[in-house]
């Protein structure tokens, strides 16, 4: 079984899943739940796949285009969704994602309902460079004024507005950043699996993304990343029961929500680890000065 965990495909999928979890977490960190994530991933996958395979354009250009289109679509989703409130906004993003799937089916150039073959371009190295870049970016975002603003808006939209924060702007920004990251996941997915079809980008992909964040913890990006790693390993270990995958997801969500609603990794856990490392650094600094 260990061999399964070291194959290039598994390493690619592990990285892509981390991107999915973190990209869903970013709008959630600003209090926005996206059910339309599958659409954002699909749009980037289709566009980048068509660019490299049908038009023969370079892969880096396809990455930029995929991230760009998903970022813009995320902004559009949120701008339309924010006309409604709370859960209605989230449902509206789902409706928009379903429109994207219908469009994928209707375009003959990309194989319609059958999908099309994409030239494989990614290696685990490329995927993990992307993952590390996104994790560093999100970590920096979380610890910046923007991250604190997201957190404030998530805690109380009204109080944030009375503190002079343009909450609508920040929610749209959060969707845009999450969209770009979901787009990167979509580009990698298309060029790793090599076969994309409309069915791949169904609501199931959104469920996967938010399960990573819910199980791992949605108070910090480390939660979403941890959830993605744990569930990817778990599902690989239970490959023999692949038909039961939705059941495993359902049970996990119920168990975590019942016993640990904030997920496995909470903000408090992250702060404890940070304090531990800061303490270690301080001690070694003092020892260095004494020595």
């Amino acid at each position, binding site marked *: 079984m260990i061999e399964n965990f070291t194959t290039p495909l598994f390493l690619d999928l592990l990285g892509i899943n981390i991107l999915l979890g973190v990209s869903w977490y970013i709008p959630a960190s600003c209090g926005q739940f996206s059910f339309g994530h599958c659409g954002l991933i699909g749009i980037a996958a289709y566009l980048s796949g068509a660019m490299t395979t049908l038009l023969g354009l370079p892969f880096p250009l396809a990455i930029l285009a995929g991230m760009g289109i998903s970022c813009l679509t995320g902004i559009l989703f949120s701008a339309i969704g924010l006309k409604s409130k709370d859960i209605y906004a989230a449902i509206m993003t789902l409706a928009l994602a379903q429109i994207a799937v219908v469009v994928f089916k209707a375009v003959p150039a990309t194989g319609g309902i059958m999908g099309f073959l994409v030239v494989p371009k990614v290696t685990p190295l490329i995927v993990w460079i992307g993952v590390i870049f996104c994790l560093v970016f999100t970590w*920096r*975002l979380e610890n*910046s*004024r*923007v991250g*604190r*603003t997201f*957190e*404030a808006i998530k*805690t*109380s939209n*009204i*109080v*944030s*507005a*009375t*503190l*002079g*924060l*343009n*909450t609508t702007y*920040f929610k749209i*920004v959060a969707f845009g950043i999450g969209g770009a990251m979901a787009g990167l996941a979509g580009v990698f997915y298309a060029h790793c699996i090599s076969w994309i079809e409309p069915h791949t980008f169904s609501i199931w992909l959104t469920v996967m993304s938010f399960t990573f964040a819910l199980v791992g913890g949605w*108070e910090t990006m480390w939660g979403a990343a941890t959830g993605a790693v744990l569930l990817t390993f778990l599902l690989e270990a239970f490959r023999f029961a692949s038909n039961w995958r939705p059941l495993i997801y359902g049970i996990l969500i119920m168990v975590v929500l019942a016993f640990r609603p904030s997920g496995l990794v909470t*903000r408090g856990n992250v702060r404890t680890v940070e304090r531990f490392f800061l303490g270690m650094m301080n001690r070694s600094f003092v020892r260095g000065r004494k020595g």
Partner: protein
Amino acid sequence: MLKIEKITKRFGGVIAVNNVSIGVAKGEIHGLIGPNGAGKTTLFKLISKVLKPDVGRIVFNGIDLTGLPSYQVSRLGIGYVFQDSLLFRTMTLFENMLVCGNTPVSSGLLSLLPYYQAKKEEQLIERISEVLEVFNLQGKVGWYPNQLAYGDRRRALIARAIINGASTLLLDEPSGGMNAIEREEVSKDILELRRQGYTIFIIEHNLRLMMGICDQISVLNFGELISQGTPENVASDKAVIEAYIGTKNG
């Protein structure tokens, strides 16, 4: 100068605020009192644009606030300090002070760039230290809201509004839930703020505190303005006494 002109707010069939006009002069402490359900908090929410009025307008320093969203009203210098302690619970006191949209430091995406606005950031931190010192909170910057005493949380909310650049503070029951000693401290803080030039519009149930610190008092009852004037005049107003104590007929 804050001018509330003939403002009305309805919730379905209930008129929460009915044709109310109040003027709050620059640098004064203006009290807003009235029995429970009189519409005091609703009026504050209308001023800060958390709620939109059905009729009437609010003018602040010559600017009509009609059509402005809440965050722009805040940026004009109106700081709403909520009745419930609403510090962000997952952030330390210091981080709570940093979450302000009206400081010289940008909250936008440019702030992600390393060393961007470092100088302004330093100025902001200096300002936070100054304000927290005034409110005796400087030793608690790393504390989370649940570790702070109730009085400290209330003071922190006022400090945050000041750091955010408010020149007019809407204080909704700042001494609510406090003991006599804490109330005394709050009234001293408010008088000190007035001395520093802040305009204060305050809701309080503690009438003794209000009579001691306010320059002007407005009284609401069932959404209507029933009296307005100096504390002495308001205290002897028959309509106010009836609103609080009731008439012979109940």
